[in-house]
């Protein structure tokens, strides 16, 4: 009887997981755009329950297929951690945004689940870093609420970002052909991840104060330096993210569509120059345009990724029943293909919709913030986040050329996870600060 049950779980879990995910996603979309506070608070609790069921099924499935009980301990750990995160944040910061928090918890939980599946060894490190990130992040809303000097450090931001990136370019270690990591005492960092936050603060600090053409030009030069250093480090994905975030933020902040136009023209020109000048750009484009001709060489990674996606179909092969490890760097750049292969495309689309929900939530929150500095920061975080998702998912599915960035929360990699956590908690902090402020204003009047 018990054994029969086991095989039913193995055969059926992929369908049930997809159904739970569809339900969760539907609720996420409803919550995101609903104005009814009571309804939202009920639905978010239902979401937490679904999250628990979802993760339980995933780990039960993995336990049955692999025959390793360790997976159940991992499930216990993740559940405890997510439960702890949601409750403690809700208690300490009662004005935090529960909708965003829920989606973040789900993405983080699924990320840990997928990393556990792909590599047991890497999973342990990922758990530690996630815990550490959360511990650091818990203080962020408090700091943002109390400290007032963030907007005054314009030149510190500009200089520190450039210095960090140049240091990596000049002295960093070469990882998979790109100078993007830096090792201090055995810990390997990818500083470009953290520099994203510095860059956003730099732009916000500049734009909330100055709007004139002269200052936009100055911001363009400094941002250009960031981007060029990244291109020289062969970190094309990050370079693109910085560039797109810059253009969108400037347009949002100045309300001048001409900057959008010049950004597009400049971006196109820069792409052509980069294509002509750098071989590593050319290789990506060639692999994108004609992957089947270069299948055993430049396009090996993308074609293996396409095999994985097509093999999964709509419902996937089932957890631990695919071959995602056939794809080079699957746990980092191409983790979305692994999701497609084992969970199926329906689940993967739900995951994308949840990412979009996070982004839309940030946009809605950003629109409601009166302080322009903080509004810009939240807006920038949203754009960077969603554009990164677009780059890695589009790249891994041959929708656009592959650039090699991580899928926030889902990919393994400490710097990526920590940066994303910090970004999401900065948003929470700013929202809390803004809601506190509104509450004070209301009390006075």
């Amino acid at each position, binding site marked *: 009887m018990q*054994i*029969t049950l086991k*095989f*039913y779980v*193995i*055969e*059926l879990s992929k369908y049930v997981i997809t159904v739970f995910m569809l339900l969760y996603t539907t609720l996420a979309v409803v919550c995101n755009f609903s*104005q009814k506070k009571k309804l939202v608070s009920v639905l978010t609790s239902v979401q937490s329950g679904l999250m628990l069921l979802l993760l339980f099924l995933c780990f039960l499935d993995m336990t049955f297929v692999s025959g390793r009980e360790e997976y159940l301990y991992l499930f216990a750990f993740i559940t405890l951690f997510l439960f702890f995160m949601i409750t403690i944040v809700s208690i300490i910061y009662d004005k935090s945004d529960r909708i965003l928090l829920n989606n973040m918890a789900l993405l983080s939980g699924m990320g840990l689940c997928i990393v556990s599946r792909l590599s047991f060894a890497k999973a342990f490190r990922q758990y530690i870093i996630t815990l550490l990130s959360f511990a650091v992040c818990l203080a962020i809303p408090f700091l943002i609420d109390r400290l007032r000097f963030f907007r005054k450090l314009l030149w510190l931001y500009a200089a520190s970002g450039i210095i960090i990136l140049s240091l990596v370019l000049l002295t960093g270690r070469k990882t998979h052909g790109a100078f993007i990591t830096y090792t201090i005492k055995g810990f390997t960092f990818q500083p470009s991840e953290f520099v994203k936050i510095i860059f956003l603060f730099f732009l916000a600090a500049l734009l909330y104060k100055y709007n004139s053409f002269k200052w936009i030009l100055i911001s363009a030069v400094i941002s250009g330096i960031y981007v060029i250093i990244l291109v020289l480090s062969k970190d094309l994905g990050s370079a693109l993210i910085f560039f797109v975030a810059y253009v*969108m933020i400037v*347009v*949002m*902040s100045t*309300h001048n569509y001409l900057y959008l136009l010049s950004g597009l023209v400049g971006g196109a020109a820069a792409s052509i120059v980069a294509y002509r000048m750098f071989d590593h750009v050319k290789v990506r484009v060639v692999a994108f345009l004609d992957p089947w001709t270069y*299948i*055993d060489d430049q396009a*090996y990674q993308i*074609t*293996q990724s*396409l*095999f*994985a*996606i*097509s*093999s*999964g*179909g*709509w419902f996937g*092969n089932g957890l631990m*029943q*695919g*071959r995602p490890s*056939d794809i080079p760097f699957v746990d980092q750049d191409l983790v979305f293909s692994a999701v*497609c292969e084992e969970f199926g*495309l329906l689940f*993967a*689309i739900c995951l*994308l*919709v949840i990412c*979009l929900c996070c*982004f*839309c939530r940030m*946009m*809605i929150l*950003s*629109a*409601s913030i*009166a302080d*322009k500095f903080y*509004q810009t920061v939240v*807006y920038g975080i*949203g*754009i960077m986040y*969603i*554009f990164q998702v*677009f780059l890695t*998912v*589009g790249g891994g*599915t041959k*929708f656009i050329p592959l650039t090699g960035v991580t899928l926030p929360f889902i990919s393994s990699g400490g710097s990526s996870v920590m940066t994303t956590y910090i970004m999401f908690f900065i948003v929470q902090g700013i929202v809390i600060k803004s809601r506190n402020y509104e509450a004070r204003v209301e009390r006075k009047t």
Partner: protein
Amino acid sequence: MKQEWKEKLKDFHPFKKYRESSPRFKSMVLINVSMFIFCGLFFFMIVYLSVFVSTSTIDLYNNSYNNREEIQIKNVCRGTIYSSDGEVLAETRYDENGNEFRYYPYGSMFAHAVGYSVNGRMGIEHDANYYLMHTGASLSERVNNDLENVKNPGFDVNSTLSVDLQKVADDYLGLYNGAVIVSEAKTGRILVMLSHPDFNPGTICEDWETITTTPGGSQLVNRATQGLYPPGSTFKIITALEYYREHPNDWQDYNYVCNGHIEHDNYRVSCIYGSVHGELDLKGSFARSCNSSFVNIGLSLDRDDWSNTMEDLYFNSPLPTGLLSNTSRAYIGTGSTDYDIMQTAIGQGKTLMTPLHLNMITQAIANGGVMMRPYMIDSITDENGKVIRSYQPDSVGRVMSEEEAEFLNELMRAVVTDGTAKVLNNDSYTVAGKTGTAEFAEDINESHAWFTAFAPADDPEICVTIIIEKAGTGVEYAVPLAKRIFDAYFAAK
């Protein structure tokens, strides 16, 4: 309209609080625009992904760089391949130790058509690989199989191949190298697909070393679809078609006196065996396969039109078929010398053709000008016989007009009634065809023997194309094989 939209926007929270001209309002609009841009971008990406997954799964599964088959090998027992009359052509069996092996009851007879599935794949084993390796077992069956540690049965494939006809062809071809294709005139279903030399797909692993290292050994090549041969006189079908296109109303007036050879620009082309055909019209030239007359015709043809006719018939472009095939070559253009023209008119020179291609052209003629896509898989069924997918005849399009097809039918009929294939002239069925002797060496006995035909001539059912390497003339060697196939086909009816 714009005003109305703005009014609506104002009511929408949180816009209503702010004036339109305020910077706060403008930022909000832009933030919402960004939201829509990315939602749109993701929408397109999701649509793209859905289309990708629903259209490319089977193609990508068969790619040799894709190792996903390993997943199915663990829990699916490769399905069975049947002939059109329900005989097993390939199935999975277990030896006394419980090891799986692929069993081919007919040995090497279907070597190229059914193919093999280890050390790479070919034939139906390749084309239907996705289905053979996927299961239609229900949930409870799968769970039961899991419990008993038995593999799930893969889908079965019902092919269009006929064991009886394949056997006739295989027996006759014997030790000769060559190829035979038989297809249905109106559907494009392939009944026979034979290529010699062959190999035993059941022991391909053990024989691999020998097969791949034997010098000149090309057992793995499917000559029926991949072999490129000079078409010889069978190419006169295309030359005649071009002549008809240039002379639709007065082709009957064509007249030529054959004295055994033709000379032009110091080049000399002779009729086979030094025959002297005397006075001939077009039908007579075709029926008796007069080289001199066709060289004479070739020299009179418009080069561009001729080239277009060949392109219409899929020369120099991949054949419209899912079968692994080579591209036939024939070139007539401004750069061609008169010698090239003389050679091309009778299917010699640089002209090369696959037997499959000639069969498709024959089929188009038999089918009133409409070419059908040739196919070997009729349907896919699960282990209970329920049809999962069935393949329907698929037209490639019209490659010649009905009149042109009628004209070629008449010419090919004359080949049998009073031409080179008289052996086939009998009362039980009517055949129309064309013989060929492709010379590739000085010695006439070293020529390839061709024959392509269909029957019955007035309402065609099957098309037969035969090439026998180094056998001599088509008349002597290829025509008798066609007779046996037609006999077997019509006797069974």
